[in-house]
């Protein structure tokens, strides 16, 4: 039964289902303004998907809803429509659509859009993460892991190193809500996180490590900025981590069986 059921859009739908607790909490506190942001970003994403559908015959994907939610929740405040359209266009075209659409991208379009908006317009403040929305990251992650669409070792690795950091006495209270939200929205993405089990553990550990490093050593950075930067670097490192995991597996195999 599962064999015919799971295709790319099923994964996208399950991802959206996992984000529903987040979206509910965020809309509950953000109100109409937040909903309008989300709809505007979704329209931009849909427009680009339509362009690539017509020009390159790339099938559109419902994953745009998940990307739009991530961008709307995490983008810097009061940017104005022009800058948001520019950043979102850049993120979705260069981060996802040029690679052939969702499922073939190596970086999360929302991560790219957020990095573009954050580093391109440094004068704007990053948003404060509402605590209820941050708590909703826990059910979101649980749904994602139980449904099998979020890689559990990534989340486990990040939580493990976060707990270790708190136990060692690092002051992480300020960044934890943003880091949890970004972990669920950007890092534990089924497409752009690592694909091997060991690679996933390393991916999660790397993300957690970078968050702690930035939180303790980066003066004047906002929590969301720290988390998004860590997510960007962890995503970029994911293929290398996979490569390392596969090389290790091959070396083990050669040692056991004596064959290449």
């Amino acid at each position, binding site marked *: 039964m599962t*064999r015919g059921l799971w295709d790319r859009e099923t994964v996208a739908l399950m991802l959206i289902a996992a984000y529903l607790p987040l979206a509910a909490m965020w809309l509950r506190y953000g109100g109409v303004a937040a909903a309008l942001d989300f709809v505007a970003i979704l329209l931009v994403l849909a427009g680009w998907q339509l362009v690539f559908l017509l020009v390159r015959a790339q099938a559109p994907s419902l994953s745009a809803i998940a990307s739009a939610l991530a961008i709307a929740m995490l983008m810097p405040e009061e940017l104005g429509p022009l*800058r948001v359209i520019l950043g979102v266009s850049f993120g979705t075209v*260069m981060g996802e659509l*040029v690679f052939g659409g969702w499922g073939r991208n190596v970086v999360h379009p929302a991560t790219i859009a957020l990095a*573009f908006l954050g*580093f*391109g*317009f*440094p*004068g704007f403040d990053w948003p404060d993460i509402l605590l209820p929305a941050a708590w909703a990251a826990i059910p979101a992650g649980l749904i994602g892991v139980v449904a099998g669409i979020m890689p559990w070792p990534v989340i486990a690795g990040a939580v493990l190193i976060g707990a270790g950091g708190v136990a060692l006495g690092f002051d992480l209270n300020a960044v934890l809500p943003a880091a949890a939200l970004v972990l669920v929205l950007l890092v534990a993405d089924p497409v752009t996180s690592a694909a091997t089990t060991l690679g996933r553990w390393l991916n999660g550990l790397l993300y957690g490590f970078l968050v702690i490093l930035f939180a303790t050593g980066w003066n004047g950075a906002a929590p969301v900025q720290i988390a998004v930067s860590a997510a960007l670097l962890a995503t970029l490192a994911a293929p290398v981590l996979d490569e390392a995991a596969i090389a290790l597996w091959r070396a083990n195999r050669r040692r056991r069986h004596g064959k290449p």
Partner: protein
Amino acid sequence: MAQRSTFWSTLTEPLVRQNPVTLQILGICSALAVTTSLATALTMSASLTAVLTLAAGLISVIRNHIPGTIRLIVQIVIIASLVIVIDQILQAYFAEISRALSVYVGLITTNCLVLGRTEAYATHNPPGRSMVDALGNGLGYSLVLLVIGGVRELFGKGELMGQQVLPLVEQGGWFTPLSLMLLPPAAFFLLGLLVWAIRTVQPEQAEAPEHSPPLAREGEE
């Protein structure tokens, strides 16, 4: 007449169709490094074009006397001498731009574009044609540098050649500088977009795909 048309096509081919930067991806390290403003891009373009044209002429003149085993050393010596001359001229007359370009003028010596053209073309062709080819390649390089430098300066600072073009918000205008444009990643993705645009207009430049996606057969997933 036939001779003239080959000269003309040797000169114009490298501008877009055989552009050294966007088709052969040569010389991009300097192309990315010096394009934060139009003035530095222009100076770098002029320096490289001058060095390339003169070096191609000199090497072509002595091409039959250079022993094959040491030809690269001879070429680099000639190019390096010309680069030193250009560098001294820049320091003497354009001190400020020379400081902005820092090491990149000196690095023209090792620019793969210069060595590539002298090695591939000037060592096999007479001086006149070599210099025309070198000039064409220099102009092709300059074209890319000026486009990227212009876009980066215009959107990064709202200026062109140091003149305010787009009115800034803090001076009562409407334009907020996109400071990302002045950071190194912007050069990479602008060059990528430029290559994409050129290859859309001229699809014969696109490389053949390295592998084709597997097609699902009938009756399988």
